[in-house]
């Protein structure tokens, strides 16, 4: 214990004596660790915000989309396999479902006065609001009654409202979408966040029955009306798997898919989506960390360079120590501890900087960042490890110096 204290004290005095040089030596490590911490915190923050986004959509939601599932859950070419009748069958036959809604989306030219934009317009059934948990800031969502009548009413997302109407009140205004003209009856609450995929902020919802008047909804060979997706909520998120299996059975039966044929639809629960996004962002985070780790490595090479110089410069000191009875291992550990202490201090400073930058990015609202303790511990350990690794060779060089020659050097 005392021996270690002496060793640390010896090394510390050496480092403090050469403040500027010590600082420049660890600068590379400081930058490396700081960038690891910052980039990893950005990765982690992105992951967290995506997950909370997904969770805000409701953890009890299941989305069924047309087309076979391909790698990564991306839909292959749009296919017209899901129908209104499928949705009714699911609602009727699968237990534990609380609500089912169908959607049909189409890209339409949206015109308001002079404003003109190309937007995706989604025709939905009234249950859609409940399934998607949509909040209305002003006005109302369309009713069951309006749906049945095919009323030309529209509920728009906050971004759409801003784009089309600016600061004007959108309620009661008319929007032309393709061949229909609808009155805005509701504006959705902003979901905020970067979001991913489609955000309700950018959406225009009209009754599916009104949609059918604007565009001709395709029909299958059996004469069923095609929908883009079926969304539904379940009673309990624990049941997601069971319900997915039941839906699969119902749909395969309805679509007359024989054994050995792939599903022509794709069922994804929020849970599943969250897992998928997590694995994607984890990869991203790792990649960011790896890039930052390279700068840490470069910092380590800088440490080695300075340590080699330092050994040369202190040849005489090494000779004196050896004459006083220092063994090779004493010299060796002195230089190794010096390198490790340097990079440890560099690591700590780097953590402070990195953490500060991460907090700054977060507070400025540029991005969500989350600094995880594991990453901090890892970065500091790696910094010390780099000191030991890159200090090894210079320390070994120092320990092998011949004391007589070392004493003779100037």
């Amino acid at each position, binding site marked *: 214990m005392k021996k270690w204290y002496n060793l640390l004290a010896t090394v510390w005095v050496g480092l403090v004596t050469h403040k500027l040089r010590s600082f420049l030596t660890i600068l590379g490590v400081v930058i490396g660790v700081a960038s690891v911490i910052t980039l990893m915190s950005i990765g982690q923050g992105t992951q967290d915000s995506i997950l909370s986004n997904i969770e805000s959509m409701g953890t009890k939601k299941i989305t069924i989309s047309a087309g076979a599932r391909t790698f990564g859950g991306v839909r292959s070419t749009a296919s017209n396999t899901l129908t209104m009748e499928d949705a009714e069958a699911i609602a009727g036959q699968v237990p534990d479902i609380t609500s089912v809604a169908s959607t049909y989306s189409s890209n339409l030219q949206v015109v308001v006065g002079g404003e003109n934009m190309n937007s995706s317009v989604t025709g939905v059934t009234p249950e859609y609001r409940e399934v998607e948990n949509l909040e209305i800031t002003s006005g109302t969502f369309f009713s069951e009654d309006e749906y049945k009548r095919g009323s030309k009413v529209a509920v728009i997302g906050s971004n759409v409202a801003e784009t089309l109407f600016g600061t004007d009140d959108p309620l009661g205004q008319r929007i032309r979408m393709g061949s229909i003209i609808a009155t805005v009856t509701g504006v959705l609450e902003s979901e905020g966040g970067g979001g991913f995929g489609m955000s309700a902020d950018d959406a225009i919802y009209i009754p599916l029955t009104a949609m059918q008047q604007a565009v001709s909804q395709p029909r299958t060979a059996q004469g069923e009306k095609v929908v883009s997706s079926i969304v539904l909520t379940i009673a309990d998120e624990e049941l997601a798997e069971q319900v997915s299996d039941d839906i699969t059975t119902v749909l395969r039966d309805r679509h007359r898919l024989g054994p050995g044929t792939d599903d022509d639809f794709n069922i994804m629960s929020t849970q599943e989506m969250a897992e998928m996004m997590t694995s994607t962002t984890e990869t991203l985070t790792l990649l960011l960390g790896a890039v930052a780790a390279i700068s840490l490595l470069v910092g380590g090479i800088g440490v080695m360079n300075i340590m080699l110089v330092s050994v040369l410069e202190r040849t005489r000191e090494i000779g004196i*120590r050896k004459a006083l009875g220092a063994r090779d291992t004493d010299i060796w550990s002195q230089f190794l501890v010096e390198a490790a202490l340097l990079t440890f201090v560099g690591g700590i400073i780097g953590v402070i900087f990195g953490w500060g930058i991460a907090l700054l990015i977060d507070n400025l609202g540029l991005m969500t960042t989350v600094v995880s303790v594991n990453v901090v511990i890892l970065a500091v350990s790696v910094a010390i490890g780099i000191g030991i690794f890159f200090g090894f060779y210079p320390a070994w060089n120092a320990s092998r110096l011949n004391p007589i020659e070392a004493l003779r050097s100037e």
Partner: protein
Amino acid sequence: MIKLENIIKKYPMGKRELTVLKEITLHIKQGELVAIMGPSGSGKTTMLNLLGCLDVPTSGSYLLEGREVSRLGSGELARIRGQKIGFIFQTFNLLSRLTALANVELAMTYAGGVDRKRALEALAKVGLSERIHHRPLELSGGEQQRVAIARSIVKNPSLFLADEPTGQLDSQSGSEVISILTSLHAEQGITLVVVTHDASIASHCQRIIHLKDGEIVTEENT
């Protein structure tokens, strides 16, 4: 206490070998004060390096306190240097960034452990109680050499080895250093081997050994 028998030391010089010491045989008793004199290139320093376990002979035997040390590895030699040998160099060889006290304590770290009280005692013995927190560059040459002596005293070594201890000092501080060494010998009966050109130092010694071309040419007892 020291028995050198047929010590030969050769150094490679390009393709040939240079024989620096030729069959040196020398016995030194406990408490003796021995001077080694000779022209440069006579092998004085090599002999001191061997005595100080900084180097090992090419052949021959070196018994230090009855222990054969001529075939030991570097780790064992370092231990002997740390515990049994006290070096006093011509150029002092203090660590310039450490204070006088820290320099003395440094020697203790390699000799078993730091003991602040003993370090202070050693510095008091060489008359530097007032200067313990000064660094070497703030001390005169004579003071620096006294720190170096304190650094040796503190370990209570079996053998003191001095290489031209007054070579870089003015005559005043030189004689102070000599009087410290001789009084240490008188009071504590230390064994001291000193390499020197200086006849006045040699005159304080009990034995003077003259080396020439790696051989002992004369030995006189005073």
